[in-house]
């Protein structure tokens, strides 16, 4: 009697097929869960109640930390997003700071019109260390990539009024020795070309314990006011058309 060691099975998947986005982080409000499609468990916090508008135009008051799934018109059709004001939504950050594209879709409810208010933040809760920040400038949005004492900054090429629907595409280019950022997208449906690249600075990585956060810079920064329907991060440099709707 002889025996043989057989090669491993060609099909090693176990269990039922599941949705497997190619993004490193993908959150869509239309899924009605703060948890990202890519698995990162969310923390959603808001002290006290918050109001929002439902699909019938009625006003709903949600209690402490409950999501405000607000219906708004998005490019001519009803859509549901998460209303953020005194709310704070964050996820563990488990993807590297390399060449990447960050997509954010939502309606500016005033964040762009207040200088320094955070829209998207990747970094430590303390607001220190290497970090990626999308913030209001007073008239529009800007992105900062902070590595040590150096900052690469780019500014969205259109004034953003309240309540403009905006699609922001932030690209981070990593050459292996340097990193830099730029930002483009649409404002109120009008394409906004990518800005010029920010200054190329010596590359860095996100500190351990970093989080991806919406609506404020760090856990203590000034909170913005926005309606967000999607936040996604993809490896590689994608255009708006390539990143919108892609899982």
């Amino acid at each position, binding site marked *: 009697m002889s025996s043989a060691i057989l090669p491993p099975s060609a099909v090693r998947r176990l269990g039922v097929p599941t*949705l497997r986005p190619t993004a490193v982080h993908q959150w869509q409000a239309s899924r009605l869960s703060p948890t990202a499609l890519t698995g990162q468990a969310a923390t959603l*916090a808001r002290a006290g109640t918050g109001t929002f508008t439902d*699909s019938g135009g009625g*006003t709903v008051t949600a*209690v402490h930390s*409950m999501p405000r799934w607000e219906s708004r018109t998005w490019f001519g059709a009803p859509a549901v997003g998460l209303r953020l004001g005194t709310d704070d939504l964050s996820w563990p950050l488990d993807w590297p700071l390399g060449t990447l594209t960050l997509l954010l879709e939502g309606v500016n409810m005033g964040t762009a019109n207040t200088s320094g208010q955070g829209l998207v933040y990747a970094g430590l809760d303390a607001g220190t260390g290497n970090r990626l920040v999308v913030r209001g400038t007073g008239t529009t949005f800007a992105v900062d990539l902070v590595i040590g004492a150096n900052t690469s900054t780019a500014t969205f090429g259109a004034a953003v009024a309240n309540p403009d629907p905006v699609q922001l595409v932030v690209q981070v280019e990593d050459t292996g020795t340097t990193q830099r950022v730029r930002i483009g997208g649409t404002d109120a449906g009008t394409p906004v070309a990518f800005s010029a690249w920010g200054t190329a600075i010596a590359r860095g990585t996100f500190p351990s314990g970093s989080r991806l956060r919406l609506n404020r810079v760090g856990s203590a920064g000034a909170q913005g006011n926005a309606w967000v329907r999607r936040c996604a991060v993809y490896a590689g440099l994608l255009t708006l058309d390539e990143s919108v*709707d892609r899982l």
Partner: protein
Amino acid sequence: MRLNGRTITDLVYQILVLDGHVAPSLPRTAVVSLAQAGGTFGSVVTVDPRRITVGLDVRPTSLADRQAIMDSLKRRLHRGVLELVTDDLPGRVLPVVCDGVGVELYTGAYANPVVYVQVTFTAPDPSRVDVEPLVYGLTTARTACPIGTDSVAPRLWLYGASTPVVNPVVIVRDHTGTEVMRLTLTGSLGANDALAIDGATQQIDRFASGVLQTGTNSGLGWLTSGRFPLLDPTDANPDAPAWGTIELAATSGTPTGLVAYHRRW
């Protein structure tokens, strides 16, 4: 056509065939044969999975390019569940699994890189689902819930109040006002308390100041009687239109909440 939000037109010259995604899927009721009598309907209702066939005209520039395209197609098709969106209904998705790819060489000539690729998908649930959900506030008054052509198990959030909401109840009525089901819960929801009820998974999560309660404090411990809410087309009259409704009740206090669901078609 999009798969997980991505077109495949960068890989193929044109899509020649897209079949199987339009026909309505109807539930089938089991028939029980009776001896010396006419058969009768049984209690089991099923729906058949939907099978979709896509024919792709692929025109590579070389044999190496053909293999590169096949590799890219395989990467995109073999990712577990895919969300298929067709151009005629961009607002609805159909979760599918790719279960077959056939490649035909035009004229049978291996050296000719142009090929016809037939991809088959199976949608275990043949219903398409709206991309965007509907959300409606709930009170003690009846809230109409427009649905599609298939039943929907909604999610609900029940909110507490400074005057506690004691023993909340979710009541579903048809378009005539006749009660069709209710879910009765036992407990008291204070100012910062909430319940999240998932009708599909039949899960109840309880939150206190945003913190999920577990163990003996979990939401499922509040479940007392009744059925999880289901919005069914037979409870609606879409021609009117008049829809099934959801309302809240409680032993004391003023219950409020939110219902959210994706229509199914």
